[in-house]
């Protein structure tokens, strides 16, 4: 019998090994960035190489002409590896079961690798230091201190995190750091030392509700999101937008993970009624089961339309839903649908993803698009720095970012000296079309009925920002 046990153990071990080859990809923290080695790059000089370029189109990704699609356009010297002292950049990102934002930093690492293989930034390679967290406040604040004190980073770029903006704002303000992120927490948009390339859950939900009201003509909105702290802040936006049109809105929350999507779908449809629209603010692991449950129960046509904030803007959602949802589900998209466009910048993004983005498990999608934009804008800002790359010089350049153009956003991106930053406040709407997300509506400004949008536009106008 002991032999039998050993045999069974071996069978189990072999089975697990076989399964290891069966997974869809590996986890992806940027190992190149996590070494935690110290460096004196905080005083790396830009002037030493004499190759400084202006901000506009310095990475070659916005210039006209087909050649910009090639990865060689990432830097000023195609094919030449950057050999100078590294410029250290830090990021903090959520990585926990069920909430894995590492596609963001992995895309940034891919972009940096491309830049480093093509001359770097004024001859200096970019080195990314990634701190991953599990939504523990102490861990996140410690990560911020480690990046500054041990890793000697000169900028915080590409933060994809649930809590970071909330916890580290005062520290960044104290150091004079202007972080660039694709955030979730309210402070990513409402504070002076943070600016995001994404719109986040509130303004993205605003956009989804706005589409249901203005285009679909919904007479009632049912807005549902996770039952977690902070949802009141998010719901305030859609609520203001609906009320400005005189349309009633019902705000619901659901515990996640959702254990009974059938009942949830049924409840939403009953609440909305035949002339209403249901708007979901969930990530695909929660949104998809609700939409599929609605389809199984034959509920997809019982409301005027279904809407969703940006996280649903992925082809795997469109593919999983199938053609029954063509032009029934309308998803707010904070950036252009990369499958639907093919300009020079999108070609460059795809080329970098193909050559350097092996760790970007989700491939083409909003996470990697935002990672690309955060890297691109940072590199453009770094190219404007004259003299040593210090926290002060680099963050002055970041704060000074003004009207950086991108094919992927509806409007030029600006940081600026403002009390709050919502530079991405105009969006697209996409809809499933036979297994792919396609554009349903072009660039549309988010309604200023949301008081925070109104406040930002007023402040930006006063500061001369378009």
């Amino acid at each position, binding site marked *: 019998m002991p032999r039998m046990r050993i045999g069974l153990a071996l069978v189990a071990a072999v089975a697990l090994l076989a399964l290891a080859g069966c997974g869809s990809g*590996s*986890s992806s923290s940027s190992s190149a960035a996590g070494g935690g080695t110290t460096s004196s790059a905080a005083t790396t000089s830009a002037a030493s190489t004499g190759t400084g370029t202006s901000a506009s189109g310095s990475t070659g990704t916005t210039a006209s002409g087909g050649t910009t699609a090639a990865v060689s356009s990432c830097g000023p010297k195609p094919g030449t590896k950057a050999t100078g002292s590294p410029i250290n950049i830090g990021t903090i990102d959520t990585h926990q079961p069920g909430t894995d934002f*590492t*596609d963001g930093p992995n895309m940034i690492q891919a972009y940096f690798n491309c830049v480093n293989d093509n001359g770097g930034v004024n001859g200096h390679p970019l080195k990314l230091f990634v701190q991953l967290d599990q939504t523990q406040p102490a861990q996140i604040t410690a990560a911020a201190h480690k990046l500054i004190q041990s890793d000697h980073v000169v900028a915080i770029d590409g933060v994809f995190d649930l809590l970071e903006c909330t916890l580290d704002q005062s520290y960044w303000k104290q150091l004079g750091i202007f972080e660039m992120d694709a955030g979730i927490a309210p402070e990513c948009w409402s504070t002076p030392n943070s600016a995001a390339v994404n719109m986040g859950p509130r303004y993205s939900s605003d956009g989804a509700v706005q589409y249901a009201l203005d285009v679909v003509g919904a007479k009632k909105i049912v807005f549902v999101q996770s039952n977690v702290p902070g949802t009141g802040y998010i719901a305030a936006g859609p609520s203001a937008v609906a009320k400005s049109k005189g349309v009633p809105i019902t705000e619901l929350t659901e515990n996640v*993970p959702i254990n*009974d999507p059938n009942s949830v779908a049924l409840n939403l449809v009953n609440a909305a009624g035949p002339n209403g629209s249901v708007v979901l603010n969930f990530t695909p692991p929660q949104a998809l089961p609700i939409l599929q449950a609605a389809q199984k129960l*034959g509920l997809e046509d019982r409301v005027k339309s279904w809407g969703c904030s940006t996280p649903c803007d992925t082809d795997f*959602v469109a593919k999983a839903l199938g053609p029954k949802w063509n032009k029934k589900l309308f998803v707010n998209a904070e950036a252009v649908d990369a499958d639907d466009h093919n300009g020079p910048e999108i070609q460059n993004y795809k080329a970098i993803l193909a050559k350097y983005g092996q760790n970007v*498990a989700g491939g083409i*999608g909003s996470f990697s698009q935002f990672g690309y934009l955060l890297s691109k804008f940072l590199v453009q800002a770094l190219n404007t720095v004259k003299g040593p790359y210090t926290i002060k010089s680099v963050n002055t350049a970041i704060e000074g970012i003004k009207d950086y153009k991108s094919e992927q956003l509806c409007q030029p991106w600006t940081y600026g000296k403002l009390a709050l930053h919502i530079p991405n406040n105009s969006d697209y709407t996409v809809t499933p079309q036979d297994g792919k997300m396609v554009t349903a509506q072009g660039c549309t400004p988010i309604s200023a009925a949301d008081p925070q949008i109104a406040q930002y536009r007023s402040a930006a106008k006063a500061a001369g920002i378009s």
Partner: protein
Amino acid sequence: VHPLIHLALSLPSWQDEQPFLVTGLALGGVYALSGVGMIVLFRTTGVLNLSFGAVGAFGALIAWQLINHSGMNQWLAYLVCVLFGGVITLAYGMVFGRALADRDPLVKTTATLGLTLVLLGVMDLLWTSNGGMSRSITLPTDNHGFLVGQIQVTTTDVIALVVGIVITVFTTLFLRYSKLGTAMRAMANDREITATLGVPVRRVEASAWFGCGIVAGISGILLADLVALDATTLTFLVISSLAAALIARLSSIWVTFVAAIVIGVVDAGVTPITSLTNYRDMTPFVLAAIALLFLNRKRTLSLERQRF
């Protein structure tokens, strides 16, 4: 407004409530399936298998992988899922179940948490959720069904309920009338005496582990379709089945079945009640607590196996 008045005001009409009860029946059926699988193993080996959900989730993810990345026929992939459940559970039972056979039942139960964590870790490694990645399994039976009132009941819903009933009936008859079932019942009473009577106890235990794993695999596929193909969600859905088993004092298969159905129906039925909807995840705990406090107040519940 007094909470009770608020509750009364937010109660839906019977007509509005009916569709939720229908959806709850299917979920209750799968909870019953899982609960019965756990009870049979417990009665035979004294192990309350907390890895039941993780095994099912792992099997379902393997099926998803085989269908979407290897192009395997989906029915074959579901068969692989079910067999995976049987094999991994049997392997655990033969290696660790035997090693822990003489330990306290609490130790044996806690050890299955180890398997749960290992499986969860491997699932997170192999099937990451980067970029908001989501997966789903859609059984062909989802495309067929009939209307009950205003809602569509799919064949999968019916299968979930019917499989729960069939497994419960089959297990009852199996334990009562088959030679292996009789041996399992004997082992539940006294393993050592059963062994001295010449019953091949290890083979009987192996059968129980394998059977439990098979049921875990079937539950995994059904729950992946009815709820979501998500490792964490499926792993912890076992709590509802566990609550049903606790209500049955870890002994009665039929009480487990009924309790699981009630949990599923109450959970779904509370959804349209605005003042309670965010608390409905507590349903298994509340019902188990009520049952343990009142229905069994003159008896004791123990992880030691009961005579039956």
